[in-house]
C-alpha cells in the first residue's frame, strides 16, 4: 500500500547500542568468536541431559498419538520438540541431529497441513534421532551416512507428495 510523503516521517536514529558498540576497548572479532566457541564448549555437558529430555518428550507425544484417540494437534506438539532439536544441533556439532530433526519437522508440518500420517515414516525418523543421539554419532555429518539420509528423504518425500 503506497502512502503519501505527507504521511511519512523519516528520521535518523542513533541507539545506545550503536554508541556503546563503537567505544574503544571492544574485543576483536576473531578473539570474540574464539571466546564464544569456548563458552559454547562449556555449555556442551548440559546438552546430553537436554537432548534426552527433548527426545523422551517427543517419543511420549508420538506414542500417545499412536495409542490414544488424540486430536490433530499432536503433530504440532511433536514439531515443537523437533524444531528445538533442529535449531540447536548444528551449533553444538550435531549436524546429523539437525538434519534428521529438520526432515522430521517438515514431515510434521505436512501432516499438520493435512497430509496423511505415515507411522512407518515417523518411526524411521525416531529411530534415526535415537541413533544420532549416541555419542559415537556426534560430529558425524549427514554426507557421511548417505544410506540413512537417502532413506529419510525417500519417506519424507512420500509424505509431502500425499499432502492435499
Amino acid at each position: 500500500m503506497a502512502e503519501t510523503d505527507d504521511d511519512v516521517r523519516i528520521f535518523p536514529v542513533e541507539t545506545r547500542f550503536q554508541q556503546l558498540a563503537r567505544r574503544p576497548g571492544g574485543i576483536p572479532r576473531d578473539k570474540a568468536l574464539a571466546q564464544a566457541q569456548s563458552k559454547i564448549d562449556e555449555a556442551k555437558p548440559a546438552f546430553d541431559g537436554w537432548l534426552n529430555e527433548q527426545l523422551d518428550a517427543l517419543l511420549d507425544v508420538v506414542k500417545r498419538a499412536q495409542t490414544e484417540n488424540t486430536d490433530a494437534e499432536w503433530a504440532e506438539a511433536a514439531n515443537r520438540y523437533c524444531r528445538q532439536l533442529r535449531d540447536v544441533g548444528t551449533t553444538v556439532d550435531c549436524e546429523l541431529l539437525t538434519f534428521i530433526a529438520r526432515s522430521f519437522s517438515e514431515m510434521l508440518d505436512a501432516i499438520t497441513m493435512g497430509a496423511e500420517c505415515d507411522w512407518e515414516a515417523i518411526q524411521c525418523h525416531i529411530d534415526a534421532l535415537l541413533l544420532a543421539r549416541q555419542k559415537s554419532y556426534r560430529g558425524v555429518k549427514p554426507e557421511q551416512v548417505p544410506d540413512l539420509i537417502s532413506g529419510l528423504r525417500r519417506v519424507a518425500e512420500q509424505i509431502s507428495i500425499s499432502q492435499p
Partner: protein
Amino acid sequence: MASPTINFRDTVILIADSSSYLSMIVHSILRGFGATKILEVRDSITVLQVLNSQKFDVLLFDARLPPYGGLKLTQAIRRKADNENRMMPILLMSSDTRETAIRRARDAGANMVIAKPISPASLYDRLAWVALTPRQFIDAPTYFGPDRRFKIEGYPNGVGRRKGDKIVEVANESGPALAQGDIDNLFSAARMGKD
C-alpha cells in the same frame, strides 16, 4: 564485511526463546563477545512485562516465541508510542528462512533476521551490521521501524513502500529457504544517503 570490533561491555541484551538450551547457547555466545548484562525470558508476555520496567539495548527474539510469535511481538513494541524501547534494535532468530518469512519479519519492524542454527560468527556479524550501519527510522500510519526500502541484488529498483517507489514482488509463499547471505541482502539498506 570487514572484520569489525564491537564493544559489548555494558550492553543490556534481552534473549527471548522458549528453548532453555538454545537460549543458554545464545547467552554463552554473547558472553564470549564480552556482554555481561543479559536477561533470558521464555515467552512474549514476559518480554512485554520486562520492557515496561527495564531499558534494553538489543532485543533477540525467537520468531516463534509463544504465545504470540516474534513478529507480533516486534510489531507491538514498534507500535507502542510511549515505549522507550520502541527504537531498540530487534533481531529475530528464525529457522524459517523462506523469502516470504524474511519479508514479514522486515515488515514487522525487525532490524535483522538471524538464521537458526546460530553460529558465533553469524550472530557477531549481524550485531556488527546493526551497530555500525546507520539506518533511518520510518514513522508512517501503517509502519513504524527501520527503513524497509532495500536494494536487493538483481532488483535494481529496490523494494518500494511509499509514493513514487516501485512495488517489486520478490517472494512466493512457498519459496526455498534462504542462506544467511541472502537474508542479509534483503536487509541491506539501499539508500545510505543516496539513491
